[in-house]
């Protein structure tokens, strides 16, 4: 009995233990399954996150590549434009389409063909057959097109022969508002294939090439116009040169004529002067008073005539460079004083005041004899055109490297319109003195020529009824400035 009880006790004990342990194990198993499920969920979550990370990273990389590609293409465009900007002929423009350029655009083959003629102007790696096939395709599509044509690769049977062509882009090159050329690129080497971006870049290049063609045309037109203008200028220059030569010839002839006439006149004049002087001096016997009076007048006029002939001779000598010029440093102040002293009797006769504004000493480069004639002429004129009681001022001062000599009077003055002509030969201004006193109008012409051969300047300022100032320059001796 005790054994049975013990057995039952053990049996139930074990049964209960198993039941409890089984329950515990079932719980544990459930927990484990839950944990595995949780872990699996976590791993799935990890995978989802990984997907997200990789995809966004890839997108970022793609964007970066796209941006870099665009930057590269922009830099290529910049380079292409800068190298072809100054191209001024068509052949050089076509030579710009090189293998490197085609590769930069993203293709292996490239060509430029005229439209509609179909003449190939540039060809990079296209076979003749392929170009023929593409030209035929374009003939149909390009008829009125001014947009980019894109085509996939394909095979066309031509004359019983199958011709394969790669995918291509064809763009019109428009100049003067019509399609002149077609730019062709083929066999894309870009990993992304031909995208809208490629087409955009390609169309920019086509547009730019069109712009280049326009530039070339306008350059050619302006070059032609320039050439025509140049030819016209050449013709006119030739005509002017011819006229100048003729003028010089005439001028030379005039000088020679004056020179020879003066020479011819001087000999009889010398004889007339000699005899008139002897007659006036009554060396051939006493003369009746009226005859003597008239002979005196003859003698005076002969003097004037001799002076005029001498001046004419001087002018012609200077013009024909037959006069010997000795430009050397001389004291200008002394020369002015000497000339004034020489003319002092005439100044006194006319009761004119003279004022000298001179430095004590001033050395200039000059031909002393010629400048003396200039001074005599100018002061003499001043005496002649200054009424009695007037004033003559002779001044000399330094200005930079020059000495400026001026002879001013308080005479009748010269009309504004006459000032320009005053140095012309035989010109005589209209004033009361000139109306009374006859003259040849050669003095100032001689003066101007003398100053010209010194390579200096002469000028005049005047106001009617107030006076006239003549001035001229002479180069100061080194160290005088």
């Amino acid at each position, binding site marked *: 009995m005790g054994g049975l009880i013990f057995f039952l006790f053990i049996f139930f004990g074990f049964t209960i233990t198993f039941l409890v342990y089984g329950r515990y194990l079932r719980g544990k198993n459930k927990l484990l399954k839950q944990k595995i499920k949780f872990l699996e969920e976590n791993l799935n979550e990890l995978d989802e996150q990984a*997907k997200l990370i990789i995809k966004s990273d890839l997108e970022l990389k*793609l964007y970066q590549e796209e941006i870099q590609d665009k930057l590269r293409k922009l830099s290529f465009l910049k380079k292409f434009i800068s190298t072809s900007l100054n191209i001024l002929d068509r052949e050089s423009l076509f030579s710009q389409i090189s293998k490197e350029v085609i590769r930069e655009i993203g293709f292996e083959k490239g060509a430029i063909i005229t439209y509609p003629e179909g003449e190939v102007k540039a060809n990079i790696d296209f076979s003749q057959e392929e170009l023929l096939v593409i030209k035929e395709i374009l003939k149909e599509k390009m008829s009125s097109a001014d947009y980019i044509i894109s085509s996939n690769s394909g095979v066309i049977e031509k004359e019983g022969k199958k011709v394969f062509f790669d995918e291509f882009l064809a763009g019109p090159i428009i100049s003067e508002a019509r399609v002149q050329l077609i730019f062709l690129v083929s066999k894309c080497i870009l990993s992304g294939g031909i995208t809208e971006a490629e087409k955009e870049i390609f169309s920019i290049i086509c547009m730019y090439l069109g712009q280049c063609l326009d530039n070339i045309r306008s350059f050619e037109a302006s070059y032609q116009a320039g050439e025509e203008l140049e030819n016209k200028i050449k013709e006119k220059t030739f005509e002017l040169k011819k006229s100048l030569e003729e003028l010089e010839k005439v001028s030379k002839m005039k000088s020679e004529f004056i020179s020879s006439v003066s020479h011819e006149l001087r000999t009889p004049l010398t004889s007339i002067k000699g005899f008139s002087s002897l007659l006036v001096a009554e060396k051939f016997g006493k003369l009746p008073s009226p005859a003597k009076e008239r002979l005196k007048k003859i003698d005076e006029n002969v003097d004037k005539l001799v002076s005029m002939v001498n001046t004419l001779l001087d002018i012609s000598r200077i013009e024909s460079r037959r006069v010997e010029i000795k430009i050397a440093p001389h004291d200008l102040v002394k020369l002015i004083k000497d000339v004034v002293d020489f003319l002092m009797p005439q100044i006194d006769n006319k009761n004119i005041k003279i004022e000298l504004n001179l430095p004590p000493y001033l050395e200039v480069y000059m031909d002393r004899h010629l400048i003396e004639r200039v001074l005599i002429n100018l002061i003499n004129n001043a005496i002649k055109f200054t009424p009695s009681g007037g004033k003559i001022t002779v001044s000399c001062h330094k200005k930079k490297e020059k000495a400026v000599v001026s002879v001013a009077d308080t005479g009748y003055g010269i009309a504004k319109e006459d000032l320009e002509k005053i140095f012309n030969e035989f010109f005589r201004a209209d004033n009361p003195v000139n109306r009374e006193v006859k003259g040849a109008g050669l003095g100032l012409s001689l003066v101007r020529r003398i100053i010209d051969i010194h390579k200096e300047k002469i000028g005049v300022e005047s106001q009617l009824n107030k006076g006239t100032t003549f001035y001229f320059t002479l180069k100061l001796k080194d160290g005088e400035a």
Partner: protein
Amino acid sequence: MSEFAVAFSENLDEKVTIREIALRIKSFLPRHIDFIIAFFTSHYHLSYLHSLITDMLRPLHVICIETPLIIYEGRVFSQGVVALAGLFSPKKYYLEVSKESTQEEVEISLRKLTRNIPFFSFILSFLSVEEPQSFLIGVKLGLGRNERFLTVVSKDEGRICQILGKKIYGKVAFIGWDKEVEVRHKKISGFIPLGRFFTFTKIDKKRRIILEIDNKPAFSVYRKYLEERIDIFRERKFFYLYPLGVKRNGLYRLIAITDVLDDESLEFRGEVEEGERGNIMILRREVFRKEIERISEEFSSYKVMLLVDSLLREKILKEKLKEEIIILKKKLPSVPLVGFYSDYCIDFDTHLKRFIVEEGNLHLLSFK
């Protein structure tokens, strides 16, 4: 006692370049120079550079290495010459050159080196070869199992040359330093694993092809993560962006994917065994930065640092590449930095207990 000097010039005229470099190096090492390692870009002529270096600096040995990019201090240059010059106590370094990278030549060279420098602190070698299998066997035979070894590999032959006297040698150059020259080597990847791990189930090691992952064609690992973007990924060969990683001893070794074959198997460069577990990897700048921060202190007392960067990183990072070097220089402002770019490296795997190929890491070699 070892002394180092670094110099850089980006002048295109070789003569001016080497003169600038010589002036700088001579200001640090005025009397004598044991060796010069010159890294130069393709803009320069090797033989002319060599004659200029030997004429102006007169070092005992010159190693010239052509590289697409060079590193000098905190910057990356695509044109220029950078030089690392060293002066050591007698017999504290040994240089061995081999014309060929055959197993025998490599073994003999390494045996000679270890005989001359039995207690070496580190061996650095430069190799230019497409396929390094015989080289690896040679290294194993010549060196046994040794962690203090790094080979920098350039796939293009003729990129590396060593010059002794007037002869230009090629293919392999070994430099060993005695234990008195302290050399510290570390590599940084900046790659982190993504998603759940997978198992490499079928590999053709001879052809370097991963056939299956988790018993599916290997490419399916990318399909799983890229979903609708898989076509563009495959078309544009973007697999270099996400190498695979094998976890060993808690650390990841990179497996670079070089191509996807028609049967969706993956051609790879690296070392992986069937049954090993791995993950898809992604390069993260923050991870790189943290790794640099972690190791910068132990490198701060060194006299010079030679960086061996990977062209794979350049391919992935592109313009951001220079930021890595800037980060490094900022952390190690007082250590002169020079470096170059290689295709891949060979170092010792402590788990597999053999020398293996790995691509995509930045190797830091410091000397004092």
